[in-house]
């Protein structure tokens, strides 16, 4: 069924699910579904008795694993450590320092009409685009 739909339409449906999941956490728990903030919080206080963060991350990881197997993801050969490690360090450091990522600032922050989040989104989008352009030039 999905195969007959335009890929952009499927992408928008996926986006709607992400928006609904973010709203669910706000409506139910009064919490922002910011993946970087939630992850950093469980890392720095793993024994916090309010375990909703662990439950959210478990859903995300288990869901990604089960559903990702069903869809045929074009297999990506593992890229060099010299690329993956600096990239991961930058994403981890930057999202904690900037208080959010694509979900917290992007999906939730823009939905809450936060100017702070809009500035963050425009900044990381621009930085990502410049990086890809420079990498393309270097390749």
């Amino acid at each position, binding site marked *: 069924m999905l195969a007959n739909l335009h890929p952009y339409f499927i992408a928008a449906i*996926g986006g709607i699910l992400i928006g609904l999941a973010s709203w669910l956490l706000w*409506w139910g728990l009064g919490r922002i579904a910011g993946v970087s903030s939630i992850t950093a919080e469980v890392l720095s206080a793993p024994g916090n008795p309010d375990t909703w963060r662990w439950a959210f991350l478990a859903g995300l990881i288990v869901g990604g*694993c089960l559903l990702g197997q069903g869809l045929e993801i074009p297999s990506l050969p*593992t890229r060099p450590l010299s690329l993956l*490690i*600096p990239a991961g360090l930058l994403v981890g450091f*930057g999202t904690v320092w900037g208080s959010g990522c694509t979900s917290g600032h992007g999906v939730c922050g823009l939905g809450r009409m936060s100017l702070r989040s809009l500035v963050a989104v425009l900044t990381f989008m621009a930085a990502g685009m410049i990086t890809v352009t420079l990498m393309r030039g270097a390749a």
Partner: protein
Amino acid sequence: MSTSPLANANLSPSPHRAGRLGLAFSAGLVFAAGLVLSGMTQPLKVLGFLDITAVTQGPFPGLWDPTLAFVMGGAVCVTLLAFAWTQRMTQTPVFANAFHAPAVSQIDWPLVGGAALFGVGWGLAGYCPGPALAAALLSVDALIFTAAMLVGMLICKSFLRQN
């Protein structure tokens, strides 16, 4: 996961423990479903979006892949409506005593500097935190990135604690 959830049951600040955990787990599942369905767990789709100069290669959108814009557009349409509706219709969350809106509103250097560093890392590998975690058990590529990301988060946390 270093402590048993049962051992902490009596310390829980909320009376709605089962509801909270069930809802948070479900939200994580639906979030993952959205990421997988929209292709965002595939870093090449994300890099194809960030490769904005490819838009000049041929008739619009050229070799540029606008998929991520549709994902973000769909998600933000829902949150714009749903957050406004929630603010209007409900006083407290279903399973909590209060809404925890971010308290900070000023635009400062940590915000812009952090977002810029994040953007560079995002542009290098094509993973942001959500998709990286959702793909971590399926690909070694995502797993290595995720491990480095967790280290980066810890480094920043300790850096912030010292200052």
